[in-house]
């Protein structure tokens, strides 16, 4: 079953230090850590369907990895 996304993210994975604060902060729990690593060797978040564009991930991220968009439908 597919879930509609009201928002989406741009994730700058090369800035991520893999602290996973965004995973717990995401209200619809649509962020998950990747199995791959970035150039610094850290795992980074990937987005699944169901983002609401609430900006909680951007607020808690110490490394400014997220840019948040709300989709206009």
């Amino acid at each position, binding site marked *: 079953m597919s879930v509609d996304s009201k928002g989406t993210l741009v*994730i700058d994975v090369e800035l991520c230090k893999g*602290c996973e604060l965004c995973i717990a902060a995401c209200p619809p729990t649509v962020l998950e850590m990747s199995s791959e690593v970035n150039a610094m060797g850290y795992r980074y978040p990937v*987005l699944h369907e169901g983002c609401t564009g609430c900006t*909680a991930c951007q*607020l*808690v991220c*110490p490394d*400014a990895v997220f840019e948040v968009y709300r*989709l206009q439908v």
Partner: protein
Amino acid sequence: MSVINTQTPPTGPAQKVAEFHTPLILGEHGLCPGCGEPVALRILLETLQELNLVQRTIGVVGHGCYGSFVRIMDIDVLQCLHGRAPACATGIKRMRPDTAVFTLQGDGDMVNEGLQEVIHAAARGENVTCILLNNGVFGDTGGQQTATTVLGQRTKTSLEGRDAEKHGYPIRIADIVASVDGAGYVARGAVNTAREVMRTKRLIRNAFESQLAGEGLSLVEILTMCPTGWFVTAPDGPDYLESSMTAAYPLGVLHSRSAEAN
């Protein structure tokens, strides 16, 4: 569930609601994963931007991990002696009353090294805003115990946990400053959840408005995570802050001269 492409902005109609960070941050900081201080820096600079104060703000920075922000903040900054930021800020504000002056200090800087400075600045009623980043450890030097370390907390110099008989009790600096007559606005926030980040941003805004209204010294204590110094993993940092620090340091507005006048 399928993974969504997050490398490029959406192609359809969409509204950008949050940037990576404010343009006042010029590069990457070198702090540990899960640190709360960059979040506090971002909301501080965003507040300055929203109040349109960027061109007339002078920041006074103490010594600690946040010292590395000096090279990435696009505002005028003075880095002064350890703990002496409120004294330097006093001089700047008295010579340049048109500026907005803030100090950025850690708990080791404000409460251990320069405890008298902030209390005297408050007693003199200086119109500066002090931002205290309180994580309960000397992060920059390796995580030793500070005066604000809560009872029972493990640090590099209190491996069995802080014991009141051996190490004494933590100092609640915001409560002390709130009791000084010259203080205009004193509040305590945290950056452990998105909700607290938004609330703390409002507290910082109130503090700068208090400074611009000439009410006296304003202090915002921000509880930040230091997973490295606390011996916890980065994802456990916010929960640890919630369970240990907010119990000892209740969040909220402790003193507001404008609210009391109304």
